[in-house]
């Protein structure tokens, strides 16, 4: 019978939410709750955290027996897109706008199961150039084209 299966992903998220709530409540306690008349910086976090914790537990109870989402986790897209974004953030200042943008688009194109190299490189090159004209030349974003 399927009924006895625990929906681990749902339970995991609900648990994270409940723990987040507890952590927020604890922070509120540390920040100082104060009184209703003179609310401390921890007043709202304290009560909000409690609410989140209760909601997290309620969601866990409600979803624990629900059917799992069949969709597999998109590991490849997540890695490729993350790597691309991190690369842009890391390279934009040091290498310059053009190389960083080119790297961003080529890396994130790897998210597709079968990337087409020529198409990827051409798109990335053209868009980097167009982006440079738009953002740096027209809109004046303070980044060098290529850092030597």
């Amino acid at each position, binding site marked *: 019978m399927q009924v006895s299966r625990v929906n681990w992903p749902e339970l995991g998220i609900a648990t994270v939410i409940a723990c987040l709530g507890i952590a927020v409540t604890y922070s509120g306690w540390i920040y100082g709750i104060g009184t209703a008349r003179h609310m401390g910086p921890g007043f709202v976090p304290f009560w909000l955290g409690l609410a989140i914790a209760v909601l997290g537990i309620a969601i866990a109870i409600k979803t624990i027996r629900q059917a799992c989402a069949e969709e597999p986790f998109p590991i490849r897209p997540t890695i490729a897109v993350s790597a691309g974004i991190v690369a842009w953030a890391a390279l934009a200042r040091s290498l310059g706008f053009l190389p960083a943008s080119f790297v961003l688009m080529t890396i994130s194109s790897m*998210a597709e199961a079968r990337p087409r190299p020529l198409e990827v490189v051409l798109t990335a090159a053209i868009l980097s150039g167009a982006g440079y004209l738009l*953002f740096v030349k027209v809109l004046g974003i303070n980044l060098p084209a290529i850092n030597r």
Partner: protein
Amino acid sequence: MDFLSNLALGFSVATSLNSLIAVVMGVLVGMLVGTLPGVGALAGISLALPITFYMEPTTALIMLAGIFYGCQYGGSTASILMNIPGTSANAVTCLDGHPMAKKGKVGVALMVSVMSSFFGSTLAICLIAAFIPALASLALNFSSAEYFSIMLLGLVAASTISEGSPLKGLSMVSIGLVFGLVGMDVNTGLLRFTFGFLALGDGLNLIAVAMGLFGVAEILASIGKDHERLTNTGPIRFRSMVPSREEIKAARFPALRGTGIGWLIGALPGAGPTIATFLAYAVERRISRHPHKFGTGIVEGIAAPEAANNAASQSSFVPTLSLGVPGDAVAAIMMGAMLIHGIVPGPDFIANQPEIFWGLITSFWIGNLIILFISIPLIGVWVRVLSIPYRMMFPAIIFFTCVGVFSINNNVHDIYLLLVFGIIGYFLKRHGYPVASLLLGFVLGPLIEEHLRRALVISRGDFSIFFSRPISLVFLIVTVVLLMLPLMGVIGRVVKKNRPKEMNGGD
């Protein structure tokens, strides 16, 4: 000033060259991002926001608003041609729009959609022009107690009325509120939830959060999925677009009712265009004399939701502009954009800056008029855009997102934030958590805390201030009712489950 001179003032602002350029650019960008599946008004406005930093505030707002309502038009194109809603507010349009396209009446479907959209918007704009100033003058008497209660109402409404589990909605709103509190506490200067990162002192960047939740998360979910092929429409000629007299007659009242429903739902705090379309479609099917025909491609099924979503997107400006309390996530982004441009929406805004307010309202109508005329000739362009494969599109979207987020503060921390929220957003969406509620909570977090604090200072810590003021009491009663409704639903379901056991055995 009376209504006519206000309108004249508005027209003089909205017909200046800058405003006209802004409105055309806005609706074009809006229709483009609306047409592209997976990129909605939220992402469009967030992406364009950095570009508007170099404009006058009025021009900037006119353009951003143009993106918002342009999106609602554009979204129906993808719904009709590909059976993929361009934005979630156009999902219902697929039900009858796509079958109609398959029947070879693509032109009529698009035309009916455009006409009802224009009809809905125009009527809604007239209503908001009359309604917002009245509401704003009423709101001048609001104290912090009322503001707190209406924000609470908006947050609860956003999480319980939206699709999906109300529990998940409420958890998203609450977590959003906490995210909103990140940074320096305005009263004590204490740094909250910054974990020692100095960059978080000013709080989380709204655009990075929004683009993460709605841009990056959406891309992660869409990569590698084969999108449905474009329906082969053949050349679309103007002759084939003109609806017959019967079709116009059939669409007339659904469009009118859709406008009414859309306007009301949009003006409520917490409910946006998407819900309005579902409701409008359901109502039409309920009152129709031939409900079985819905879903087979009839004009009623296009006219009602399209009128509703455009009316709703206009009227969602009501709570934002009159109270300074955004009703849904897109309005929250619009309000964030206004604040960045140094405009604080609210009752004082209309009195103090009538030229911006009336200019904006008039530009809505001019924008819709422009859309009416350009949308039909541009359909060929959108069809071509839709035929660009997604594998070429998504790296470009990520690129523009990164540069856009970077350009707001010239700072790379925001890009890491974008990525973190993108991954969080993907997980939440995958499991049916409404991230739009999170964003609304995020924007309202600091506001609601401040009004709670002020109200309690005035009442010397007495919570009865929220119940003793009549308007505030009404808001709170509605809030409680909204909270009870899903609870009753749960009870009802439990009762049902326990009673006829043999009927549930089959699944």
